């Protein structure tokens, strides 16, 4: 397998919430709970999960925007928390992000070319004289054509799809190696969504990016990802190659997600007819043992007491379930 660009080892992120009379009672929420994950060169890993699963928190930690309370994140085999000032600048150049809401991710007071020029200036990557030509080329590349028209536009003058194109241009202006995309197409209309996904795929191939793609939409994930990690209440419950996860899911939660996904191509083989019980529990007060046991139709005694570890079910495919057995599970 190719080189790791980012590796996460036993990451923990705890939030403290206060509640009650004078907000005296404290409670700790494990938003990310002992997660290990490696992102390789030129690979797209999708993080899948419902709200409260911790995928966004993990994404923010990988971007260096949220400190871990335990574990480590390594970038080019250096620990993220211990980077020097200079290394941190290089890290910021190397790791970029596209958010869900293109309306909120661009500064409304900056034109598109100002928004793109700023990182170029801060990181001193080229003489100011060359910037305009570079920006024009970049806008053309992300489909904002003719580029001279869009250079001086403000975000409010663009449609949702165009804004997301501008946000992508912003993310790749410094030629990063790693892109974190947090639900980048969920706010867009169907026909625009496919345009943006194609653009992300193209840019990924052209810049040889590693991409961490956060999404709840399994159709999108199957289209874009090489590997998939399924998160539930802060833990990775299953991880593996995209084909494996979609055709031979091992964890009951993954099977539930696949059963719930709207589909017009469902057949008997991919029904995974698992009916989930109830709704996700409060992340502040997760069940003991396996977090999924309260909604799992297969739960038994052991699930209440013992947290299942991630075990290899077939090469490159791991699941955290007491029922998952190597190569025997349906």
């Amino acid at each position, binding site marked *: 397998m190719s080189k790791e660009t980012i590796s996460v080892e036993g990451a923990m992120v705890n939030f403290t919430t206060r509640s009650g009379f004078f907000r005296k009672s404290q409670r700790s929420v494990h938003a990310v709970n002992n997660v290990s994950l490696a992102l390789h060169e030129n690979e797209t890993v999708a993080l899948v999960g419902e709200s409260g699963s911790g995928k966004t928190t993990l994404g923010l930690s990988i971007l260096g925007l949220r400190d871990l309370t335990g574990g480590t994140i390594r970038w080019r085999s250096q620990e993220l928390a211990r980077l020097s000032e200079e290394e941190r600048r290089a890290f910021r150049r190397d790791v970029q992000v596209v958010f869900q809401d293109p309306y909120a991710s661009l500064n409304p007071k900056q034109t598109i070319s100002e928004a793109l020029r700023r990182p170029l200036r801060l990181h001193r990557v080229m003489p100011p004289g060359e910037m305009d030509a570079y920006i024009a080329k970049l806008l053309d590349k992300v489909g904002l054509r003719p580029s001279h028209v869009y250079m001086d536009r403000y975000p409010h003058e663009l449609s949702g799809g165009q804004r997301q194109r501008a946000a992508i241009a912003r993310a790749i202006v410094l030629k990063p190696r790693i892109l974190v995309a947090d639900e980048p197409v969920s706010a867009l*209309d169907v*026909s625009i969504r496919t345009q943006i*996904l194609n653009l992300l795929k193209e840019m990924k191939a052209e810049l040889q990016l590693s991409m961490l793609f956060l999404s709840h939409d399994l159709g999108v994930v199957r289209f874009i990802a090489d590997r998939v990690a399924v998160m539930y209440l802060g833990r990775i419950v299953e991880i593996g190659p995209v084909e494996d996860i979609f055709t031979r899911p091992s964890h009951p939660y993954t099977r539930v997600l696949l059963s719930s996904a709207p589909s017009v*191509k469902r057949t008997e083989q991919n029904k995974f007819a698992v009916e989930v019980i109830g709704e996700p529990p409060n992340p502040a007060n997760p069940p003991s043992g396996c977090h999924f046991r309260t909604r799992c139709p297969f739960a038994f005694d052991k699930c209440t007491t013992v947290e299942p570890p991630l075990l290899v079910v077939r090469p490159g495919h791991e699941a955290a379930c007491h029922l998952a057995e190597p190569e025997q599970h349906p």
Partner: protein
Amino acid sequence: MTATDQLLTVEELEIKFGSTSIVDRISFSVGKGEAIGVVGESGSGKSMTALGLLGLVPPPGRLSDGRIEFQGRDLRQLGDAGLRDVRRTEIGMIFQDASSYLNPIMTVGDQIAEAIGKRKSKDPAVRQRVIDVLRAVRIADPERIARSYPYELSGGMQQRAMIASVLIRQPRLIIADEPTTALDATVQHQILKFLAEMRHEFDVALILISHDLAVISQVCDRVYIMYGGQLVEQGDTASIFVDPKHPYTVALIGSILDPFDPKTEIVALEGSPPDMRSPPSGCRFHPRCPHAFDLCRQEEPPEFAFASGQSAKCWLHKEGASAR
């Protein structure tokens, strides 16, 4: 379908904001107990159509033309008080965001009781009806939920409570505007499943409005596709998926990224939806249509009908189908 089986018949409905038609002469019908889907992107006019049926078009918009016949009465002739009665008893509406629909300072039980005109749910008979309807929307412990305030409930539970407050009035028709868009995948699946079952249990017809054709296909018998304020295609859900007649429908189906239909490439529909203040000449879809020819730019296509029961507003069918 005979005339007596029809619940709602809409003809040539037009909604204007100033001189801009944002819903442009659309006609459709809903049979008793039937589920129809309305699909379109933002700005296609799908939500405004729903509000138009209920007489709720926000000013300065107005329902400028058309006929809405519901159970033999013309809703446009009813006046404000009459329409309010229809909304209270016969047509219910559920929205995307339940938390802004529910009153935050009233218990869920009281709100549902209020929906049938009872101020408090203390009366045992009313209480029982509230509990029954909460149980009917598959809430496991209805007594506790009835005593809860909306903020104490999850998004899925709030959505169920909103549906309960509509169902308790025993409407004949429910209009659901993107009812599951804000919900998590597993909860979305549960609510859609409930909406499909509800039709039979309560003998209620459903108009499901969504941007997601895959969602519609799980619940609806027939589909109407909207683009730029117009209906561009309609037909049985199955026929539309097998043999879409309008290039926009073809593109919509092509854009579905299905988890069980792996694709490595997808052809995106280029461009963006039309600006309704100055819609394109001729067919509104022509600037984005891969098959557009001269006629499409010049003249608006009529609706062509097909043997399958489908119809499509597209010049490609000028020969071989009958205009109506």
